[in-house]
């Protein structure tokens, strides 16, 4: 907050810009203003509303408010420009790009395998989905989709569904916090922590795992994984019932969400909105069912939908989806059979053999001994595959999977080289955010928060 320090002057003396001058001249926060075609535009940086505008100001009803980019309820660095009359929002405009890091461009200067490390950082609440969608694209380009080992595919589904729950839990936690339901925040992050522990056990990292690689997985499940996940499967349904008991019937929660931010199915499709928002509008469009991948057609689960198309319906759909994901995780555990987790083709399969050593995770000593001591060819092969990478036949593919936020699509182009020619991420948050004006215009300022939260955008994916 910067108080204006310019010398007092009248607006008639400087018609183009100046400082609003209270009649008594005592304000420490004088609003600067500029004259524009639409009228006088004030830029307010702090202070008491009445002091700023003065009592006699007539066109004070139309106010433009910047919400963000650092507002805590904007899910990252999202900026909302609201035009309000009183408490009613007449126009919502979104400004994005604050988190643009050029992930797509960076991928063009790394090998096909290294690109995973960038892309996992796009949507940081569902990194494994980024990895899976990208790897499915590369595998389709390579023509090895059918050669991916069964165990690798099952583990991919397993970790993705665990992450769907954790992503929905973050949505519950942050969304609840934005509405003042801090218990929802505590509950959501508490259970998410358990899932992060599981993912850390499996992949070694809590986030940005780079676990799914073209051709399979970085490594197999460690010992004790199944037991840990089964314990979680016993615990989690109780927790979901707890959320229902805490929130589903709660009057304040319902008052903030029921019949708020309605967008019907036709509006969703026109705006490209997919995922829980579309399913809450009554259309059971879930790519796991409608265009299956990774063998989802062989799992038994339901696609929860609702008809109300409001924020509360989206809440219910997400809560139900957590339960369905638990079902899939359980089926994955039952299906796990011993076997390889990387494609057999040694010209594609990542050559590292990871194991836990005295100083942490690294290449296994047996593997090092083999390539350094006994097989010159293995050493050359390892070196070439890691530094040069493998070649991918030219062409382009588009692969879409159902991420926690909707359709996550990867448009990947190869020119026949060892690096991607182009990787485009169709991020569901990016597309779904376009619906925020339709959700919020005509509503109240407080409902803007609910609207943004109900879309569940992750700005890392939006801006990439």
């Amino acid at each position, binding site marked *: 907050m910067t108080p204006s320090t310019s010398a007092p002057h009248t607006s008639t003396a400087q018609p183009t810009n100046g400082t609003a001058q209270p009649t008594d001249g005592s304000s420490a926060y004088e609003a600067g203003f500029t004259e524009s075609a639409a009228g006088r535009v004030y830029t307010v940086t702090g202070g008491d509303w009445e002091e700023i505008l003065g009592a006699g100001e007539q066109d004070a009803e139309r106010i433009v408010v910047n919400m963000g980019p650092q507002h805590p309820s904007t899910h990252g660095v999202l900026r909302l420009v609201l035009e309000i009359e009183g408490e009613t929002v007449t126009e919502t405009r979104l400004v*994005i*790009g604050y988190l*643009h890091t*050029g992930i*797509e*461009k*960076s991928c063009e*200067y790394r*090998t096909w395998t290294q690109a995973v490390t960038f892309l996992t950082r796009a949507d940081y609440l569902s990194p494994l989905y980024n990895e899976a969608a990208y790897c499915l694209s590369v595998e*389709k*380009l390579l*023509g090895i989709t059918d050669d991916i080992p069964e165990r690798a595919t099952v583990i991919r589904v397993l970790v993705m569904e665990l992450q769907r729950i954790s992503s929905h839990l973050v949505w519950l936690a942050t969304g609840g916090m934005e509405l003042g339901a801090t218990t929802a925040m505590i509950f959501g992050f508490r259970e998410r922590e358990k899932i992060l522990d599981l993912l850390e056990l499996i992949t070694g990292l809590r986030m940005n795992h780079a676990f799914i690689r073209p051709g399979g997985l970085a490594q197999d499940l460690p010992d004790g994984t199944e037991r840990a996940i089964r314990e979680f499967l016993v615990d989690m349904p109780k927790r979901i019932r707890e959320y229902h008991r805490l929130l589903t019937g709660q009057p304040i929660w319902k008052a903030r969400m029921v019949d708020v931010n309605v967008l019907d199915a036709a509006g969703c*499709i*026109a*705006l*490209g*909105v*997919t995922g829980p928002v579309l399913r809450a509008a009554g*259309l059971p*469009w879930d790519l796991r069912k*409608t*265009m299956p991948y990774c063998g989802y057609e062989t799992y038994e689960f339901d696609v929860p939908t609702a008809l109300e198309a409001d924020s509360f319906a989206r809440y219910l759909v997400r809560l139900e989806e957590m339960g369905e994901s638990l079902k899939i995780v359980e089926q994955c555990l039952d299906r796990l059979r011993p076997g390889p987790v990387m494609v057999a083709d040694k010209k594609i399969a990542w050559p590292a053999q990871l194991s836990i050593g005295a100083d942490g995770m690294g290449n296994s000593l047996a593997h090092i001994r083999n390539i350094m001591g006994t097989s010159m060819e293995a050493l050359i092969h390892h070196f070439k595959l890691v*530094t*040069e*990478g493998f*070649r991918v*036949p*030219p*062409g*382009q*593919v*588009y692969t*879409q999977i159902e991420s926690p936020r909707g*359709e996550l*699509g990867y*448009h990947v*182009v190869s*020119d*026949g*080289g*060892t*690096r991607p*020619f*182009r990787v*485009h991420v*169709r991020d569901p948050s*990016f*597309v779904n*955010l*376009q619906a925020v004006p339709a959700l919020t215009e005509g509503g109240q300022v407080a409902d803007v928060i609910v609207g943004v939260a109900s879309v569940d955008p992750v700005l890392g994916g939006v*801006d*990439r």
Partner: protein
Amino acid sequence: MTPPDGGSLDESGATANGSGELVDGGNPDGGNPDGGNPYGGNGVRPGRRHDAFGSGGTGDTSGFGRLVAPAPVLAASERPFGDSDADAVYDALERVFPQLGDAVERAVVDRGELTLHVRRESLPALAQTLRDDPGLRFELLSSLSGVDYPDDITGRRLHSVVHLTSMTYRRRLRLEVSVADADPTLPSLTSVWPTADWHEREAYDLFGIVYTGHPGLTRIMMPDDWIGHPQRKDYPLGGIPVDYKGATVPPPDERRSYS
């Protein structure tokens, strides 16, 4: 699929990052936008992909050889495509869109995905038909992305690629429109699929493709006053200064590479 073949030494040898003139024919500033099929029958588009291991003939494996391998392009597929979804879409389109032969330069079926290379004048009418016809019903525009092919033999280096999803028939379709750098305009799809709004702004911002008829074509990722379009292949990249004797890590496109 035609593998890269027949590499030759780059005569100019001045650039190692793939930017430069076309090898034969074609005006990089937009020649031949409406001519016949410039791709010939063999399906290989002459190009200028600097390449070490992928080009044959010289044995240079250093990565610094500045060898040039032709960038292959996929040739038009013959009807019937042999892919049930692709044939169904094309048959339905032929029935209801009589100008299809003029509108579509090439139809390519590759890895089970149908790509229609569409002339930009025909895009709005074709898009409207694809969305509204009961036999097609591509209700959802899933994705729109730009791709920069600096070596496109037609000189139309900027490609706007649209991925459509038919939720009714559960099919996908790719439309690809290419425009030249000198005249990078094509009709906006926002009137057919409103969701194209932000996608087209992104393609404009990062590739400089101008969508006429878009309600507000402004930058979306980069700051408003940014100069240039960063995802073009010839966009200058920065190096990284190192705090030791004034050294720098070279920009990514000037580093040693094997691609």
